[in-house]
């Protein structure tokens, strides 16, 4: 089951998504972080970590190839201290980073279709292995600017992924000034 959380930059979508996960009855909570660690993103990653503190998430970090997170998730669940039956919920944040990471990996640019197909297949695998999958994604589509072809291709890929996820999601929220609006 997919829940999609959509919003602009600094719209409060992360906090909204985290609260959504924390208010779920499912006990086992995983956080799949897709942001690459760099001097530019350091501060933001730190802020999000502080936001998540004490909320009981186990963090998985995959900037690309998110289906590999499943292996780590299973390994984590089979370690003695975490051996537990029961449902799990996974929060994936953020799709906009994942699309950029996949698309511009190793300086080789994938096409929007190729990129979107790969990600959607991997999301499907994650959905099958979890009881609830909450995906945070970004609205980068409304500044009316004209961008270079690479950026346009990126926007196209993210748009394709967002639309497909929205179509298969159980519920979709748009977050505006921290308030989730059910679509």
């Amino acid at each position, binding site marked *: 089951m997919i829940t999609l959380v959509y*919003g*602009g*930059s*600094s*719209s*409060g979508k992360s906090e909204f998504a985290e609260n959504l996960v924390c208010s779920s009855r499912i006990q086992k909570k995983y956080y799949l972080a897709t942001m690459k660690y760099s001097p530019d993103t350091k501060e933001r990653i730190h802020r999000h970590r502080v936001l998540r503190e004490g909320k009981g998430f186990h963090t998985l970090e995959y900037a690309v190839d998110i289906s590999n997170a499943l292996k780590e998730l299973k390994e984590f669940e089979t370690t003695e201290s975490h051996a537990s039956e029961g449902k799990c919920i996974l929060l994936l944040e953020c799709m906009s980073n994942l699309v950029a990471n996949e698309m511009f990996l190793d300086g080789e640019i994938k096409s929007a279709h190729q990129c979107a197909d790969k990600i959607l297949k991997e999301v499907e695998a994650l959905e099958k292995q979890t009881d609830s999958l909450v995906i945070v994604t970004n*609205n*980068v*589509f*409304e*500044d009316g*600017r004209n*961008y270079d072809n690479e*950026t346009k291709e990126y*926007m196209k890929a993210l748009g394709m992924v967002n639309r497909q996820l929205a179509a298969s999601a159980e519920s979709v929220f748009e977050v*505006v*000034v*921290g*308030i989730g*609006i059910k679509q």
Partner: protein
Amino acid sequence: MILIVGGSYQGKTEYAKQHFSNHNIWNGLHLFVKEKLKKNLSEEQILDEIHKKTDEGHWVLISDELGNGIVPIDEKDTQWREVTGRILILLAKEADEVYRVLLGMGQRIK
């Protein structure tokens, strides 16, 4: 306090005047944030100034939505949209009512 957000030229001011004529209207809150950032004020200081200015009377605060685009190249622009976004989240928490105006139509979201 009432908060109104939306894209530019969506009719936010018109909406405020029509529905909250007995309120003071503060238009262009996002521009206030920009101006204060230029003077190196922090997020907290800016919020503080907003609180002080709206301390008395009934207020409608209006701001453009800035976050729905690609990350700007200029770091200052990025900082502006992020600080504005976070300030709006905090103001929305304090507000009695929050509206989002699209095509002149106000949707009450709080």
